[in-house]
Structure formats: structure tokens, C-alpha cells
């Protein structure tokens, strides 16, 4: 029982990070109809920048702010730069450019900082609170849950309740009409990338202290799991990403805790297959148009 409570709590904290990263993939998908395969590589560059600022200034908060800003700038640079080189009417050229970008960024980081894991300290203690004899969340886990929840709530409110959010959604769903109505569609797409990469950088910042440390490939596993989460939730749905993120986080934690850590990817694959067989568009997919 103790173990179950602890594993579920730890799974929720990891799931919050997963949901946040999946959210960033959903934002890009909604803005541009592409899966950004370079998301992890771009985000890890921002995380390196964040910890460089933290090391120089001594303040975790300053570093985190710098990381989020750098992430946003990288998002704009990637969308205005390499992604504009190829047509977007088919998805493949964009995917190939993103893979090329991943190669350049990760190898560049390995040359600049070396292939070793650099240990990273969390801003809050990682020793769990003990509640009625049961170890539950650590202060840092709680902090992660709160930050991820606040950011996702802010994004949801921003997209549904503000004029800018309306323009972003209009540019994504009906670019031609939105353009005729005065929405600056290319600017909105770039803004979508900025929001997405800032979110991804934050997710990376929150994850790295709980893992082995900083490394050019530190966020690869997060990207793959978050992609599975976004697909399970239905790529268009922010709510789906949240629910699926928590679900996958708890599943991975339980499987790693009760079986072996190596079985976690198999469990994710199993869940993904099951969900897609029942609902081919993910859990929160919109109603399908009628076909013949």
C-alpha cells in the first residue's frame, strides 16, 4: 500500500512533465500541422542555456527565465529559418528537416560541452514528505505539479479566452479565411512555435534535475514518451494531452516499480496500441467526417 501511494504520487509528478511537453507538441501541431521532431533537441539547447545562466548568476529562477526565453527564441528561429525552406503541403519534408536539425544541434552540443552527464541540482529538496508513515511527494515534485498545472491552465485560458488566442486558433484552422479577416497568419504561426518551444524548455528544465543530469540526449526519452502521450490524447486536444500525460506517467511509474524499468516502453506501446485500436484518432479526437 505504501509503495502504491508512493509510486502513484511519483508517477503523477512525472506525468505532469510529460503532459507539459506533450502540450508543446500539440501547440505546434495546431499551429502548423507538423510534428516537430526537433522539439527535444531545441529544448535541450534552451536547458543548457538555463543552467549556464544559473551557474553564472547563482539563481535558479534567473536561469529558468533565461531558458524559457531562449526556448521561445529558438522556436521562432527554427520556424522562420529551416522550416520555411520546405513546402508544408505534405508532412515529410518538414520531418526530414527536423531530423537534420536534431543531428546538427545534438552533435554541436556534444562538441561544445562534451559527452559526459553534467549533474544538475534541483532548486528544492528532493527528499519526500512523510505523511502518516508513507513517503509521498518531495517538495520538488509538488513544485513541478503546481508549475505544470499553472502553465497548462494559463495556456488553456489564453487560447480560449483572449483575442490573441482566437487569432492563433483561426490561423491554424482556416488560414485563408483568417487572412481575409485581417489575421496575420505567418506571425501567428511563428508565435505558436514560440509558445510551444518555451513550454518545451520549461518541461525540460523541470525534468532534468530528477534524471541523470544534463546531456545532449537528455530529453530524447521525454520526447518519445510525450509524442505517445499526444497521440493517445488526440493530437488536437490540450485536455487529451493532460489526461494522457498523467495516465502514462502513472503507468510508467507502476510498471517500473512493480516489474522492471526496462518494461516501461513496452507498457507505453501496449497502451498506445490499445487506445488507437479503439479510437484511431486518440482519446479526445473530434468527430470524424463521414467517408462514403
Amino acid at each position: 500500500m505504501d509503495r502504491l501511494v508512493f509510486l502513484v504520487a511519483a508517477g503523477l509528478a512525472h506525468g505532469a512533465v510529460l503532459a507539459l511537453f506533450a502540450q508543446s507538441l500539440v501547440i505546434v501541431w495546431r499551429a502548423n500541422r507538423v510534428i516537430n521532431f526537433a522539439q527535444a533537441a531545441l529544448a535541450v539547447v534552451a536547458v543548457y542555456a538555463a543552467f549556464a545562466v544559473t551557474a553564472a548568476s547563482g539563481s535558479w529562477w534567473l536561469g529558468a527565465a533565461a531558458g524559457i526565453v531562449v526556448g521561445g527564441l529558438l522556436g521562432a528561429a527554427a520556424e522562420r529559418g529551416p522550416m520555411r525552406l520546405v513546402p508544408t503541403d505534405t508532412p515529410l519534408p518538414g520531418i526530414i528537416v527536423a531530423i537534420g536539425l536534431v543531428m546538427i544541434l545534438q552533435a554541436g552540443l556534444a562538441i561544445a560541452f562534451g559527452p559526459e552527464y553534467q549533474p544538475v541540482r534541483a532548486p528544492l529538496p528532493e527528499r519526500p514528505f512523510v505523511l502518516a508513515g508513507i513517503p509521498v511527494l518531495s517538495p520538488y515534485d509538488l513544485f513541478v505539479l503546481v508549475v505544470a498545472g499553472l502553465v497548462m491552465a494559463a495556456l488553456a485560458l489564453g487560447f480560449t479566452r483572449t483575442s490573441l488566442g482566437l487569432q492563433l486558433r483561426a490561423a491554424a484552422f482556416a488560414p485563408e479565411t483568417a487572412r481575409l479577416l485581417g489575421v496575420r497568419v505567418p506571425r501567428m504561426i511563428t508565435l505558436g512555435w514560440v509558445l510551444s518551444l518555451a513550454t518545451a524548455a520549461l518541461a525540460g528544465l523541470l525534468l532534468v534535475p530528477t534524471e541523470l543530469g544534463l546531456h545532449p540526449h537528455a530529453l530524447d526519452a521525454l520526447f518519445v514518451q510525450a509524442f505517445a502521450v499526444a497521440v493517445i490524447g488526440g493530437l488536437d486536444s490540450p485536455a487529451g494531452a493532460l489526461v494522457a500525460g498523467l495516465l502514462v506517467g502513472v503507468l510508467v511509474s507502476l510498471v517500473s516499480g512493480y516489474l522492471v524499468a526496462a518494461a516501461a516502453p513496452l507498457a507505453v506501446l501496449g497502451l498506445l496500441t490499445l487506445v488507437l485500436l479503439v479510437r484511431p484518432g486518440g482519446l479526445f479526437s473530434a468527430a470524424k467526417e463521414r467517408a462514403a
Partner: protein
Amino acid sequence: MTRRIVLRAVLVTLVALAATFLLDPYWNFQLARFAACFAAVAGLTVLVGLTGQLSLGHAVLMAAGGYGYAFAAGPVTDALGDSPAAPYAGLLAGLLGGLVASGALGALLGAAAARLHGPYLAGLTLALVIALPSAAVALPGLGGDQGIGVPFVPVPDALATLMYVEHFHAVVAIVVAAAAVTPLAVLRAGRHGLRMRAVLGHETAARLSGVNPGLVKAGAFTASSLSAGLGGAVIVMATQSVSPGAFGLTFSMLLVVGAVIGGLGSIGGAAVGAGLVVLLPWAVEAALDHLPAGLPPVLAQRLDGNLAVILTGAIVIAVIAARPGGVAQLLTPRTARDTAADTPSGTAPDTAPDTAPDQAPDTASRDATSHDTER
């Protein structure tokens, strides 16, 4: 048409076989790797180019072929004992085992793929690649991270004066690759290829014309898997072991890069793409060997390998930016009869790929696969 394709395949195979006599052992081994990658990339290019199903997991299908080879070749070779024919019976059984294993996995995936659209299928196949090492550890008999060994196939006595081991393996690989790719080329040019293009072009219209889209998609996935599985079996034969590490995420992505750079749907493009997968890392490495002298050892160590990856990435972006249709777009004249059907944007020939930089992506003309996800 079929006769012309087979004739051309025989000619290309003979040229490749003749080339093996000119190469040294190292290059013959690389040629065997190239042949295996060619089979996999050709399967992928037909799948993505003709039916629009993006698989990021073809490395796992190669691995399935490799494990199938190991499971069949080992026992058969052992059962025949000291008979001189034992290794060759093992080889044939192994290839058959590879076909069965990759075909079974491919049919399963194809059944799922028939229901899924673009990014969902990509997500599923990506999760599959990540799950491969776990499966190797969790499933009994797959040998964990170490993988399992495969019996050695020596040069037959009759050819012993002509060939050394790598040479013989390259010959086997070329013959197997030809046997894997030629049916794909015939399939692509024939009635089934037409059905695949119809499904890609407009699923509902294809259904109204009496084509079953689910069946066509699942069939294409299975055919593509069989080719990739033969490629995996042959590479396992040449390296004498199969392990999950050899079929990882990076390799799987490289196969996709090869298929797209070569030009989707084009078999000749697949050859160029497979060449890229095998040669580019080597070529960049070799070019770098001549450059740095007197660099600090730490920096030299960091540059080693990583610089090759950076250059590969830059080349990949440059090629795809210059020619979104891949290298095949350079080779085929624009007036060729089936140019439109060969290029990935061929589903909507009226959408010019030269969109102005600040122009919005044209959602209205996006191909049929993405319609369902829009509200």
C-alpha cells in the same frame, strides 16, 4: 512492363555482382550492408510514396527479419550437423524464417495502420522502435542487449578458388536484395500500385471505384515489411549476430531520411538513399582524417564522430530544401508520364511547391489523409 522491369533488375544485379570482383574485403562488406539497406529503403519508399503511410519503425521490421533468420538458421544448421550442405540449408531456412517473422509483424502493423492516419501511425511505429530493446530483454529467447549469434556461412567449396568470405556474403546479399526489390518494382508498376495511388489520392473516391482502402494499405505495409525483413536477415547473416542495438532509433530515422532524400516512391531513388545511409558517415569521417593536425586531444575526441553527424544533418537539410522531391526528381525529366505520381506532392499537382516565404500554408489543398483531423 513486368518483363522490362525483370530484365532491368537482372542487368543491374549482374553489374553489381561483377563489381564485387573489383572490391577489397572491407568494401565488399559495405556492399552487403548497402544491399540490405537498399531492400529496407525500397520497401519504405514504396510504402510512403504510394500509400502515404509514414513508418518510422522499419528498423524494427529489419530486426524482425534478423531474429527470424537467427531462430531458423541456428537449429537447421545444427540439425544437419557435419554435412557440407548444412550452412546453406541454414541460410535458406534463415531467409525463410526472416520472411515469416517480418511478414507476421508487418501484417499485424498493417492491420493497425489501415485504421490510422499520418501522425498517429508515426507515433505507433516510433513507440515500437523504442520498445525493441525492452522486448529483447523482456521476451525469453531474444538474448537481451547482447542479442543472439548466428551460424557462420562459409564460402562453398566450388567457389573457394574465386571468392573470400566477405566477397561471398556480398554476392548473397546482392541476390537476396534483388529478390526483395524486384517484386516491389513489379507491384509498384502494376495494378496494385495503381490501387495504392488511388487510395492516396482520394480514399472515398477509391472506395466508390471498388477499391478497399484498408486492404490496400495493409497489403502495402506487409509487402514493404517483407522486403525490409529480407534486408535485416541478410545483414544478420553478414555480421553473424542480431542484437537490438543494431536496429535503434538513429538507424530507423536514417532509413526514412534515405527514402525521402532519394525521392519517395522511386526505386532508383531508394538505391541513392541507401547509398547515403551507408556511405555518408564514412565519407565525412574519411575527409576529416586529412584535416585536423595538432588539435588538443579533448577537442579532437569531441570532434570525432560528432562533426560527421553535423555535416550529415546539413547535407540532409540542403538536399531536401533544394529538391523536396528528392534526388529522383533530378533524374526523371519533368515531362515523364508518371512524374506526378512519383513525387510526394503528386496527389495535388496544382499546389505548386514554390510557396512564397510569407505565404500561409495552404490548408485547403492538403491531401486527404489530414482532413479527418480538422474540425
